[in-house]
C-alpha cells in the first residue's frame, strides 16, 4: 500500500496498519453498510471517511459453486479411495488417498432428479455440508482398488466432522456482485435456480442484498482482494482468489457499480469453526440442491472514495430484468429494462408496462445480522483486517469531479 505521506489525490488517507491499530486499541469506528449510507448522505464522503474506519457488509443466500475439501482419516488397512459417497452423495476422490471434494449441487444417488417434474431434490451436497457442520454423524462409503501401499478396497463408516482430521469450506464462486432480476415471459411455469417463475411475467425474483452486499460496496475491488479476512458461514474465512466467472468488464454506472452480474470471489475457511445457522442445504424445486452461505466482508475506509462507494444506496444500484422462460436457457442476451434495488425491494416493478410483484431470494434479515455480527467482532477487537497481498482484476474508473 502507498505511503500516506506521499502525494495523494485524497484528502483523507488511512492505512490498514493504522485502522488495525485502532481496532486493537478498541477505538475503531465501525458501522454497517446500511448506517454508512445515511452517514455519507448527511456528512459527505470526506467527513464520513474521517470519522468511520470500517464498514461491514453481509449477504445470506443460495450460492452455487460451494463445497468442502475433506480428509476423512485413514482406515486399517489403509485405503486409496477412488469413489466416495457421504450419505449417498458422491464426492470427488481423484485428489489423493483420503482427500475428497464434496460439491453443494451434487444430488444424492438414485434421486429421481427431474424425471418426476419438477423434481424435489430433497438431499444433496449442500445438505451434507449442513449436517456435518450441525455435528450430525454422516455415513461415508468408499471404494478403491488395492495397491501395495493401500491394501483396503472398501470402507463404510459413520463419521462426524469432529472426527475428520481436516475440513475446509472452499467455494470457487461466491458473493456475486449484482445479479439478474428473473421473470418468465413464456406461457408455462418454469422452475429455475432463480426460483419458481409463473408464466406471462406474473412474478419477478431477485437475489442480492443490494446496499448491504459486499461487492456492491467496493465495486472496483479496491480493498477486497486476495487475503481479505471475512465472515464466512459463521466463522472466519478469507478471499483467496477471484471467483469463477469474475467479470470486472461488466457495464457500470457513474458510481462504478455494475448493472449486470460482474465480480465474484473464491473464499475459504475452516469448516470446523463454522455454524449450521449460516450454512444451509437448500432444495430448489426443479433445479437441484445447493448451499445457502452467510458471508460478510469488512471494508476499510482508506479515503473518501471508499466512503463514497460504501455510501451507496439501493436507489443507486441497478440490475436488468431477464427472461428465464426462453432467453436464458437459449443464451439470448436480451433484457426487459433496468430496475433499482429500491424498486425491487418495494415489492413491485414494471416490466413492459405491466406491474409485476417481486420476491427476494436473498435473506435481508440474515444479511443485516451478518453485518452487525462482523461489526461486533471488530469493535471487540477479536477480528482485524487482512490487507490484500494482491488485488483482483478490476476496471478503470474515477469519480466524475463535477459530481
Amino acid at each position, binding site marked *: 500500500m502507498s505511503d500516506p505521506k506521499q502525494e495523494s489525490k485524497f484528502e483523507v488517507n488511512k492505512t490498514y496498519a493504522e485502522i488495525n491499530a485502532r481496532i486493537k486499541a478498541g477505538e475503531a469506528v465501525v458501522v454497517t453498510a446500511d448506517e454508512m449510507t445515511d452517514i455519507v448522505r448527511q456528512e459527505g464522503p470526506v467527513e464520513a471517511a474521517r470519522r468511520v474506519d470500517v464498514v461491514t457488509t453481509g449477504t*445470506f*443466500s*443460495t450460492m452455487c459453486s460451494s463445497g468442502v475439501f475433506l480428509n476423512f482419516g485413514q482406515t486399517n488397512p489403509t485405503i486409496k479411495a477412488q469413489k466416495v459417497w457421504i450419505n449417498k452423495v458422491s464426492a470427488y476422490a481423484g485428489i489423493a488417498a483420503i482427500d475428497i471434494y464434496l460439491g453443494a449441487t451434487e444430488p444424492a444417488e438414485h434421486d429421481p432428479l427431474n424425471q418426476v417434474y*419438477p423434481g*424435489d431434490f*430433497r438431499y444433496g451436497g449442500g445438505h451434507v455440508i449442513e449436517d456435518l457442520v450441525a455435528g450430525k454423524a454422516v455415513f461415508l462409503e468408499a471404494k478403491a482398488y488395492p495397491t501395495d501401499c493401500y491394501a483396503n478396497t472398501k470402507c463404510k463408516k459413520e463419521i462426524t466432522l469432529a472426527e475428520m482430521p481436516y475440513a475446509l469450506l472452499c467455494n470457487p464462486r461466491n458473493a456475486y456482485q449484482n445479479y439478474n432480476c428473473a421473470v418468465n415471459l413464456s406461457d408455462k411455469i418454469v422452475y429455475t435456480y432463480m*426460483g*419458481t417463475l409463473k408464466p406471462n411475467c406474473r*412474478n*419477478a*425474483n431477485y437475489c442480492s442484498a443490494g446496499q448491504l452486499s459486499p461487492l456492491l460496496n467496493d465495486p472496483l475491488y479496491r480493498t477486497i482482494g486476495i487475503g481479505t479476512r471475512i465472515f464466512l458461514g459463521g466463522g472466519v474465512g478469507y478471499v483467496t482468489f477471484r471467483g469463477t466467472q469474475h467479470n470486472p468488464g461488466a457495464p457500470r454506472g457513474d458510481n462504478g457499480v455494475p448493472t449486470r452480474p460482474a465480480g465474484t470471489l473464491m473464499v475459504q475457511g475452516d469448516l470446523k469453526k463454522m455454524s449450521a445457522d449460516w450454512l*444451509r*442445504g*437448500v*432444495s*430448489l*424445486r426443479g433445479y437441484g440442491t445447493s448451499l*445457502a452461505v452467510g458471508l460478510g466482508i469488512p471494508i476499510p475506509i482508506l479515503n473518501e472514495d471508499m466512503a463514497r462507494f460504501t455510501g451507496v444506496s439501493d436507489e443507486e444500484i441497478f440490475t436488468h430484468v431477464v427472461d428465464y422462460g426462453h432467453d436464458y436457457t437459449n443464451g439470448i442476451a436480451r433484457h426487459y429494462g433496468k430496475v433499482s434495488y429500491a424498486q425491487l*425491494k*418495494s*415489492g413491485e416493478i414494471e416490466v413492459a408496462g405491466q406491474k409485476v*410483484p*417481486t*420476491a*427476494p*431470494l*436473498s*435473506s*435481508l*434479515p*440474515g444479511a*443485516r445480522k451478518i453485518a452487525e455480527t462482523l461489526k461486533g467482532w471488530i469493535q471487540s477487537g477479536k477480528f482485524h483486517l487482512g490487507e490484500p497481498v494482491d488485488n483482483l482484476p478490476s476496471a478503470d474508473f474515477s469519480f466524475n469531479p463535477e459530481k
Partner: protein
Amino acid sequence: MTKIYFLRYPKETSSQPVIYHLIQRYEVEFNILKADIRPQRDGIMVVELKGQKEKVTDSLDYLKSLGVQAERLAGKVHRDENKCYQCGACTGICPVAALYIQRPGMEVIFDPEKCTACGLCVPVCPVRSMEISFDPMSDTTALA
C-alpha cells in the same frame, strides 16, 4: 373448488386404474399429496381434488362405488421458525399473501389466519420450513 381427501382402497381396487378414470370421466384435477399402495394390501392416499363442485361430488360417488372410503381432511400449514431463514422465495408464490414481506426490515412474516392451506409454498421453500398436516374434519362435513 379444491378439497383434500383421505382415501382408503380395499386391496382388490388398489391395482385398478382409478385415477385415470377419475381424470378422464369426471374432469377433476387430481393431486396426490401422499400415497402408500402396496400389492395385496389396503392402499391409502391423501389427494387434492380440484374441479367444479358437481364433478368433485360425482367423482367421490364413483370412488365409493368402488369401495373406496373417502374422508374429507382439513389441511393445516405451519412454519418451522428454526428452519426458515427469511429468504422470501415463498412470498412470490403464496396466492393470498399469508406469507409476506414486512417493510422496511424485509422480514418474511407468516400469517396462519390468512393461510388457505393450498400447499403451494411447501415445495417452493428451499429449506422445507413450511409443513402441511391433515386432520379429519367433523363428521357432518366429511363427505360434503
